[in-house]
């Protein structure tokens, strides 16, 4: 219990990994025939957004992180595909049970909001949630940079 904590690892891959994944997903999107019809802008936006998230999840560590697994699983469910992940040591059920014992009203309220934001946050303990949030924030900011670069590059001068 009083063991020294391992240093928390929140490393994120370089920008080009994110770019690669995002562009791959975009090119996949374009291959769809109905993609570029000018009327259905909302659908396009949603698809691009989803592609952005999925590519971010893949680039950021695939199945190594809890939030990326949850994201990919959610996306696969929407497409009615089955995703298989390699088995991890910890089980989510244990965490759920433990979670009910650790209640600190002020803290848990905020943690609840955070859980709603971070994908896969529902099954995590609060300390694990913090780790995942840190990594998630880093990946999100990287993804935002990539998309910003793309937009800047494509913007008509």
């Amino acid at each position: 219990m009083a063991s020294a904590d391992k240093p928390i690892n929140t490393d994120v891959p370089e920008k080009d990994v994110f770019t690669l994944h995002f562009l791959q997903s975009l090119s996949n999107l374009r291959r769809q025939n109905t993609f570029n019809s000018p009327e259905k802008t909302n659908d396009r936006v949603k698809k691009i957004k989803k592609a952005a998230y999925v590519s971010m999840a893949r680039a950021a560590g695939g199945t190594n992180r809890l939030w990326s697994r949850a994201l990919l699983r959610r996306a696969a469910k929407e497409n009615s595909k089955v995703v298989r992940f390699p088995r991890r040591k910890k089980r989510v059920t244990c965490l759920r049970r433990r979670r009910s014992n650790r209640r600190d009203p002020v803290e848990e309220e905020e943690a609840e909001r955070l859980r709603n934001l971070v994908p896969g946050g529902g099954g995590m303990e609060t300390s694990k949630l913090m780790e995942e949030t840190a990594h998630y924030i880093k990946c999100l900011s990287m993804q935002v940079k990539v998309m910003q670069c793309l937009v800047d590059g494509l913007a008509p001068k």
Partner: protein
Amino acid sequence: MDLSVLERVKWLQQQQMVSPEFFEILGSDGREELKRVESYLGNNNDEWQSFRHYETIDGCISRTSSFQMEQVKNNEENRATALQHKRKTEGKTEKIENKKNKKIKTEDETESSMKGKSNMSNSETSSEIQKRDYIHVRARRGEATDRHSLAERARREKLSKKMKCLQDIVPGCNKVTGKAGMLDEIINYVQSLQQQVEFLSMKLSVLNPELEYHINELSTKQFQACFTDLPEAVSKQSMMVDASSFPLQHQESLDYSVINSIQTTTLGSKDQTSSGWEIHSQSLYNNLRTDSDSSFFSLK
């Protein structure tokens, strides 16, 4: 460790807490001695009126075993459990009822701690000894049982450590102190990032038709080179680009060639119309097609 133990025992002696039996126990082994101690303590519970005695012995003993926590894994099971109890009693309030239970446990743990390998925490020892003066001040409202409270405290420390990590990542967290404020900031930041993603994806959807042709033509690697470095290239307005300045690391010379060719072409043409893009993309494509292998640095 021996020295520290002796110090403590001397201190105890001074407080006239220690009976000769205790010294006998010091060098011995086994639970029988512990039971003897327990009985000894049990007899004297009624006699000891002063609150302080409890505190001091408990605190003193707790100190001995508190550093042993890391060795829990090495020790036998009984010692491990005893040590856990020990650690948890550290921050306990000085209720006599609790004390009685803890006393036995603490004695238990003292034994185990003394028997255990003690090379682990000389530094901790010194710090703990310094805290000796603050035993009485350290009273904290205990939780239901010792183990839970200690678990709670350890968990809280873990959490605070992770919050500090988050504080470094999220900008603007330094001004706000306290968990609630920081969590608010973090939540706002995450929400803003997600909104940014949505906004940028909307922008991209508008710009998409321009991309269409080029994406069909080019491979994704080329695109990556195109778009990540294009803003930088345009802003730099330089013909030659250092290889080291590129963030790309994986694709090496292939990308460098692409980037160089892009830069020359973009600088050649002033306006970035879609037709201009088309020409550039075509040229790049041809470039890369002719030289499939890497180590291609010539500019178009």
